[in-house]
């Protein structure tokens, strides 16, 4: 079966006066129907940039330099203007981090929902309104029939994010890109939103790219996880495998630096240093200056790819299962 989304050797370039920056480098992954792929990484790892490339929202001068993106078997990375606009919203829904800035403050939420549906679906105004109310009910907004005529500022943060999810889902897209959907929300509301996303996607078979920096959210929501570092894929695999027996030293370091109940008050493991800037990427593996397992060959170009460690981790000297067991 063709995967819903297939990214193949995607590279994004930003030409600047001081040379070309490469925030996404040679990234490949698939998302199957109904699957939730978690994309994790620290700030500047290129996780959002990859998501924006898929939906065609790269800010110039950033552009796709090479690689292919296929949605349901159709190539979409070269689409321009109106073609891309028809795709956005209809086939790909997007949920951003900040629910206040992704809604128009001057339009009632019902109007925003019907506008999206009328643009993409062949239905009448009154049908669209009915479906808008149904969509709000589905995302758990109490009194949807009345709230449909409210403005965004009359909702709380969690309710606004529900509206944004309703908006992303109203044209029944086959892929949702959720970019840090719960980062601005409180713990209890975050749990509600994650549960909602999981339920809706399971019911409709929507594929989800869940971009976040929170390992806990990934563990609970995702089926597979892609760990990104300095624009490259560091590790890609089923979420349980990657989080419990990481092969890439960076994933291992990330897991070690997360405070955990079971570890008590022992010192946190720290990864020395910081992620390199895009204009000063080291040779070979981008992680080697901070890596405890780095050896001489880690600096050789081209750097490691996923194929170097069982198709899962881009590392010449991955952690062996015996080491971590």
């Amino acid at each position, binding site marked *: 079966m063709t995967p819903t989304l297939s990214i193949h050797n995607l590279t994004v370039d930003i030409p600047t006066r001081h040379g070309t920056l490469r925030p996404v480098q040679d990234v490949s992954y698939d998302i199957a129907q109904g699957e939730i792929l978690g994309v994790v990484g620290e700030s500047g790892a290129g996780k959002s940039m990859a998501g924006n490339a898929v939906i065609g929202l790269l800010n110039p001068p950033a552009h796709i330099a090479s690689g292919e993106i296929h949605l349901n078997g159709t190539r979409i990375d070269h689409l321009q203007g109106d073609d891309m606009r028809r795709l956005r919203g209809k086939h790909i829904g997007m949920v951003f981090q900040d629910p206040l800035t992704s809604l128009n403050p001057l339009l009632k939420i019902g109007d925003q929902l019907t506008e999206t549906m009328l643009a993409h679906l062949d239905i009448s105004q009154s049908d669209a309104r009915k479906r808008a109310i149904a969509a709000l009910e589905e995302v758990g907004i109490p009194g949807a029939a009345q709230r449909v005529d409210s403005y965004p500022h009359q909702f709380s943060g969690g309710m606004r994010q529900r509206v944004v999810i309703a908006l992303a889902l109203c044209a029944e897209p086959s892929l949702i890109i959720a970019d840090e959907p719960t980062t601005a929300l409180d713990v209890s509301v975050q*749990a509600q939103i994650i549960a909602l996303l999981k339920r809706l996607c399971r019911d409709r078979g929507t594929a989800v790219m869940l971009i976040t920096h929170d390992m806990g959210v990934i563990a609970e929501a995702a089926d597979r996880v892609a760990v990104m570092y300095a624009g490259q894929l560091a590790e890609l695999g089923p979420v349980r495998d990657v*989080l419990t027996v990481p092969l890439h030293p960076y994933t291992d370091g990330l897991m070690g*630096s997360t405070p955990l*109940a079971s*570890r008590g008050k022992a010192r946190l493991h720290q990864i020395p240093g910081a992620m390199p800037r895009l204009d000063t990427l080291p040779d070979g593996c981008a992680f080697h200056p901070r890596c405890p397992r780095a050896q001489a060959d880690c600096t050789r170009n081209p750097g490691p790819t996923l194929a170097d460690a069982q198709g899962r981790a881009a590392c010449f000297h991955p952690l062996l299962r015996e080491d971590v067991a």
Partner: protein
Amino acid sequence: MALVSVSHLTRIFDVSKPWLNRVIERQPKALLTAVSDVSFNIEEQTVYALVGESGSGKSTIGKMLVGLLEPSTGSVDIRGVDLARETDAQKIDDVRADIQMIFQDPFASLNPRWRVRDIIAEPVAARGGHTKGLSERLLEQVGLAARDAGKFPHEFSGGQRQRICIARALASEPKLIVCDEPTSALDVSVQAQVLNLMSDLKDEFGLTYLFISHDLTVVQHMADKIGVLYLGRLVEEADPDTLFETPKHPYTQMLLAAAPQLDGFGREVIPPTGEIPDPINPPPGCAYNPRCPLAADICRTKRPELRQIGTSRVACHMVDATD
């Protein structure tokens, strides 16, 4: 004696519209109770953590502790001195010198036009102290290089800036540091570096922290005692082990269940219902009663007192029944 003693602390903000609008629209004054009757003590050289969701009043308490806000009623005693009521200027000055604060956003809390040397020395320089070589020494203590003193804040990353903030907080040799979400803006690997640094400095200088955070795992890692806030009220106070193993208040139980877990693969959480109520019109009785699975009639009429139960203090009418 406890270093900090907070008793019946209440802070009310007037969020009314301008008076003419109120007269024309015939609206009463709108008063927002951000902190309501909160009492706790912080022992010397311990870490007291306040956790709660947004709007629970945790930052307001922190600001009242350092004197950035005045309490509406109640008091904050630091080494026996109430900053809001003390009249002896010398005493106030002495206590003030013992308190420092680290803020959440290291991009907003450093003056972009000052060199790091001046930023760090400012708490000492402002009191006419001797600052030669001070910044360089502190920079090395927080894991940066002495030569960084001549640079400007924009030359540093988020984690490095937070280290500069910590160095500045240490400059006046304080006893108490109020940390308001010190790692919320940082990535997880950098957060680990900063948390480790804070633990080391605490042992080295004998510091006391009031650690304000919304992140339960961070709090559990750092704190000796945790106070859980809900809508400006302290609902439970316990040491980390007790709190995380046997949470007593239904709100704490809900928070712990809702927090994402690293080993929670495919966990189906029953999501909590409802949201924090409007602090201008809080529900009568226990503030948590509209969302509480145990709520009974008494919860809707009478506000529960904080009671000693085992080693914890809990504000819940129903807690004995659930034990």
